[in-house]
């Protein structure tokens, strides 16, 4: 009798897992269709990555129901996982190629690193908050991302031994762009920095290292739900 009950419970659990997994997969597809593709993200690599990575696994269990909603979600420690569209938009801005080596400053839950790792060869990600570095490292390892290296360190110094990088994404709040990061960027490389408090309009900065002496910065405008098309201030 006990065995039967146990077997039934296992079966039920399995069915529930399948059911929820299916729900999440369809939510993810809907997210890509309505929030990302519909808003002009064209890169096939980015769209594929966004469709592949199970975003809900990077969100604390009580908030998992919001994983595919069109807004940022708190992940604890005063951090958020960015709105899906912003993740896709920033990834596309970096123009990642399979042979690229990308540095991320601010691992958070590891979602952005996972998206990048679906496209490029190597992702190096640095997180200063020990708890987040540990949890994201474990999660990414369990999910089989062996092309992502997580380091618990001060992102100010980048990751010199793996430099230079084709592109750098600074997702941690920074008062300024740390000079070592500019040094670790290849000439011709791109750095993308979203600036702004959590849950708010973020300003995206795109920095291009034209030469060792010439650095161009473009403010791509504000991003929250969609990039504002009106002219700023008018």
């Amino acid at each position, binding site marked *: 009798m006990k065995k039967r009950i146990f077997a039934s419970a296992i079966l039920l659990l399995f069915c529930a897992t399948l059911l929820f997994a299916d729900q999440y997969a369809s939510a993810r597809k809907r997210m890509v269709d309505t929030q990302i593709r519909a808003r002009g993200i064209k890169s096939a690599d980015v769209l594929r990555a966004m469709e592949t990575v199970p975003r809900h696994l990077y969100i604390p269990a009580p908030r998992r129901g919001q994983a595919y909603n069109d807004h940022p979600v708190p992940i604890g420690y005063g951090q958020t996982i960015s709105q899906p569209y912003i993740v896709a938009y920033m990834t596309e801005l970096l123009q990642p190629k399979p042979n690229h080596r990308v540095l991320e400053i601010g691992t958070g839950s590891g979602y952005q690193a996972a998206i990048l790792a679906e496209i490029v060869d190597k992702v190096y990600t640095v997180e200063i908050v020990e708890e987040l570095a540990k949890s994201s490292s474990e999660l990414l390892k369990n999910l089989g991302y062996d092309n992502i290296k997580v380091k618990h360190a*001060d*992102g100010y110094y980048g990751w010199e031994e793996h430099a230079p990088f084709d592109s750098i994404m600074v997702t941690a709040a920074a008062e*300024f762009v740390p000079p070592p990061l500019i040094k670790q960027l290849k000439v011709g490389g791109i750095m993308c920095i979203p600036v702004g408090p959590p849950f*708010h309009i973020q300003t995206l900065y795109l920095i291009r290292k034209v030469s060792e002496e010439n*650095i161009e910065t473009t403010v791509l*405008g*504000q991003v929250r739900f969609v990039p504002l098309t009106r002219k700023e*201030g008018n």
Partner: protein
Amino acid sequence: MERRLKFVPLCVFLTSVSLLSYEIILVRIFAIVHWQNLSSLIISLALLAFGASGTFLTIFMDRINNRYPDFFIGSLICFPITLGIGFIIYCKTPFNPFEVGIDPVQIIYLLIYFAAMAVPFFFSAGVIGLALQKYPIGKTYFLNLAGSGVGAIFVIVLSYLFHPFDILLAVTILAVISSIIFSTNFSKKFISIITVSGLTFIALFYLSFDIFNLKQTSEYKPLSRTLLLPNSGIIMEKFSPLGLVQAVEADGLRFSGDLSMMTPYHIPEQKALFFDGDAMSAVIPFDGNLDKHRYLDYTPSSIAAHILSTNHRDYKLIIGAGGGSSIVSGLFYGFNHIHALELNPDVISIMQNEFRKYSGDIYNNPRVTVFPKEHRGFLVSSTNRYSLIEVAMTDSFAGTASGIYALNESYLYTLESFSMLFDALDKNGILAVTRWNVTPPRDNVKMINLAVATLKNAGLETPSKHIFIIRSMRASVIVLSKSPISETQIQKGRNFAKNRGFDLVYHYDISPDEVNRFIRIPEPVYYKATVAFLSDNPGFFINRYLFDINVPTDNRPYFHNFFKRATLPYLTGEQSLPFTEWGLFVLILFFIPTLVLSFALIILPLILSPIKTKGLPLPTFLYFSLIGIGFFFIEMPFIQRFILFLHHPTYSLSVIISGLLIFSGIGSFLSDRVFNPKRRIFFASLCLVGVLILYQIILPPILRTFSSHTDIVRIIITLILLFPMGFFMGFFFPQGLNAVKSTNSRAMPWAWCINGFFSVISVMLANMLAIYAGFSIVLYVAIGCYILAGVLSIRLVKAIRA
């Protein structure tokens, strides 16, 4: 014959002390846990409970009268209990104002917040309402106002001694004492029960701070985020009415207020001071070797030192010295004398003691003098003229960018304040203002408008020759020069910007293709705005701009409010601005349900309770609503005037609030003894309006004459000026209530309820009106309210007689 209960007046007094203390300390705690912006709004909403207690008393009057002592002791006991439990609920509710509009659950959390804060107000107001029913109104109201006035002082004094959370415990103790005192009207057994359970409750509440880990700030505040850094910790904290100062150390803590990407120098790790968990100020490790701080030359605010000639570095004035990075910068650029203003004595104490060695004792450097003063108070009494005045990064980026200061007044960023700073420059001096850039551009656009208005206000022939603006990735620096900027200075500024990858925004010789080159924004909006402001018709640009970028003045000191009608379409839908940025609109949004709820609870007793007396409800309603509005409408503009006179936000508030309340209490106490009873309110109205009109004429010269006198003299002058106003303001409520009570005692709590609700409405209405039209309009409305109340009082007395 009904039994007279002992200690009712004492309980009214103690409850009023704890009630006002609770209100003030709740605002402080809210500012520490979250941010200041919504605190007063939420608490004024919680004050709806004041009016609700009137509704309750009106409806259940018969039952209450039958068991008056039980209801009285019940209210007294419930006040501290709900205060404690409500506070725990408040702290443990995961409300995040940034998620309002994103996550619907936040609305529920917000409602829980309101309820947790409102219930204690309901019971404490019940104590006062019950006392007014049975005891002489003038005396009871006097005790209520005097107790509130003492409460304002009580909490300020305790703020120097205890952490704000611990003050809440003191307030609870006071409320429990009040219950124990009143319990002496009952049996000995009951007294013992109340005493033992009261003490147990206090002990449990005290323990709950640690058990429930209540002393926590929002995880989104800069302090919480900094504490996530490795090896981080709060190494000391000090508190005063000015706020909580916490010194923090952590690995990887670096702050520069933006830095050029081209800097070849590293920023050393620093320590930091946080104010109410926000507004971080860096403390630079300084051993006297300025070479270690060459990176300072790559911060945007250094432009000022580059534009000044090297032999023109006599006096530098710093507004808000904080952790002292501007002082180190002043030493780095070779200023002979640095005057640093730091209002917060705790910051000065930390820098001169605990951080003395770490900071290289810069606060005691022979070239540095620190003044514990606010800038206006300092400049009024100073004859110095400065080569450079620096106002840099006075607000946190998180706060600026998320709009959380939207409802706060700022007396630094007003035309009058900037004109004072500009006047204090020597003949070639420079005023440099650095602020964060936010998107869409609004903060620094308004700042440029203010800067240009300052130049125009100074009567300069060609203001365009006195302004130089640059923009870095995160900040803009606006440089105003007393003398026309020379070509050499322009060249120096150009070189500075070019070598650091900063953008030129404006100088009089600029060409449009010189702007927006390094850090490209979609539109060179700052340049366009500067050109527009300098033109003959800046109004065209200002009116068309999406945000309110009008020049803030002392009459409308809302630099951080950017909301205007044109912004409305951008508040909702996909292109929405965050909720915290809505400023004035947040007030409007909260105002509507407040109004609806207030009217519902005012009308409810008319339906459920037989209080109707022919002709009485309308004059009663109008009279008590007018005086409910009028009181705060007077208080608010006078707080503004005396803040500027006393040069200190906290002292001003406590002096004005306590003074007005106590003087109104005296007025209330003596109101039975002056004037003809038939026309008493009318005459009081004439006197009050006369005083207010007279003050419009005589106050500015009086305040000017005494503005440079000592603090004590200015406080005495303030109190003398407040007395006649407060005295007559104290007549209206008790005399009106007496009139109602003499005819229909059932209507009395209803009048109390009307007054309570309109007090809440008046707080919100006054704020809206001040943001939209300025303080002077608020005062005119107050005058109108009291004139009408005076006229209505005749009607009210007639209706009662009839």
